[in-house]
């Protein structure tokens, strides 16, 4: 991905910054300057909001044929999770056996490497999720993987 394209979403990706609409009192992720439910009135009523990074699994799958750039993870778990504030997002769930992830499980966010453009290209970081009650950490010996909770 081009540098500016990733750079302008850094806050959203690194810190789970989305938007809060003061009119409908609802939360949105990723960041929006306009809430479709509230219409044009919402344009000046959206403020940045940092999500707590907690939520639960709505649906999940174990990906055996990996997405481009994710080949090193396979098989891995992709899930749609519902954040406690309301919005749903698509994310990877890590540090567990991917088959163990089930709807209703509680998850929390972690800061992780997403991928890299090439060996000499820029690295992409962002948010992934782990189970609230983690299994034995699979990647604890891998020094390349940071493990900073947001």
């Amino acid at each position, binding site marked *: 991905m081009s540098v500016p394209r990733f750079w302008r979403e850094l806050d959203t990706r690194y810190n789970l910054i989305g938007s809060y609409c003061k009119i409908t009192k609802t939360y949105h992720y990723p960041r929006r300057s306009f809430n479709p439910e509230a219409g044009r009135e919402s344009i000046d009523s959206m403020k940045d909001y940092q999500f707590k990074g907690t939520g639960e699994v709505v649906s999940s*799958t174990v990906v*055996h*044929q990996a997405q481009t750039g994710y080949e090193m993870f396979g098989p891995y778990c992709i899930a749609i999770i519902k954040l406690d504030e309301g919005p749903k997002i*698509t994310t990877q769930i890590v540090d567990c056996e991917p088959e163990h992830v089930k709807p209703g499980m509680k998850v929390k966010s972690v800061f992780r490497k997403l991928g890299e453009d090439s060996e000499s290209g820029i690295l992409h970081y962002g948010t992934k999720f782990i189970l609230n009650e983690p299994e034995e950490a699979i990647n604890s010996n891998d020094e390349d993987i940071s493990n900073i909770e947001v």
Partner: protein
Amino acid sequence: MREVSVIGVGITKFGELWDKSLRQLGLETGLAAIKDAGITSKDIDALYIGNMAAGSTLQQEHVSALMADYCGLAAQNIPATRVEAASASGGLAIRQAYMAIAGGFIDIAVVGGAEKMTDVSDSESSYTVSMGSDEQWESKAGATFASLHAMIAQSHMHEYGTTREEMSAVSEKNHYHASMNPMAQFPFAISTEAVSNSGMVSSPLRMLDCAPNSDGAAAIVLCATEKAKKYKKKAVKIIGSGQASDTLSLHHRKKLNQMPAIKIAAKRAFKSCGKKPSDLDLVEIHDNFTISEIIALEEIGIFKRGKAASRILKGDTKLGGKIPVNTSGGLKARGHAPGATGIAQIIELVQQLRGEAGERQVKGAKIGMAENHGGTAATAVVHILEGE
């Protein structure tokens, strides 16, 4: 508004067509369609091209002018328009031409769809297909196109008890139909066990739940019905057309196991001709994954929500059953060349409604529907056709 008829069709075999370029495929089907219609290039008022991915797979945009040029229409400076809505590009191109003719702007249009998916590696073509979803917030998070449909399937199984065997029955049925379609990419039958035991792609979806990424092209000639008599004895009328959109990302939908854009597009198409689901004699469905066919049949209203899968397993959607679905073999077995798929569906309906479908003919077919969607149904296009 004027009535619009399909007066000519042309299609290539779908598959790995390594010896043929996009422009060659477009030319072959375009010529076949105008020959079938009995018109000449001078009769054509406009060209509409359905193409999803030439920019990604061939580094070629401006496919409309390319096609017009290589089909010999540049000399007459024909208006040529490319339409893109991921895998719904073909269906949507038809709708644009339909509206232009119905609105009285033109009398005759050729609508062609063409796609080259196998000039690039499997991983590149898979990524290209996932561009029909939200590249930034789905694909870049590691979600493949199959994985999004896997979550749709998981949600459907969870809520309605849809089973592995029922999903396999979709593929088994479509392959059975394709075994009677000489233009199909996979013209052979497979068993439900073979589907259930094929390699895992993204749980619960297995390889034989997924449509291929194919090369292929298809073209039709649309004509104002009032002028159609002059060209073709067996014109097939487009009596209904509907289109709808939805959130681009699956995760922004209220329910993961529904595709409301299909429901609304179908409703609009039914409304435009005063028909209802029980009036349909056959249906072509966008079965990019087995679960999509199950959900689409529920959205259109052919079966109640949660009931389609068991009816498919029972054989109700097989040739000779209550309502044959995907007699062409569908995306799964006829093949799926995104820009051409929506047009190939219409061609199957036309052949059926003309009574020219050979071995796979639905007896007495009079009214058929085609449902074509893009991404995880963020665009849906539905057409209803009636034979004479």
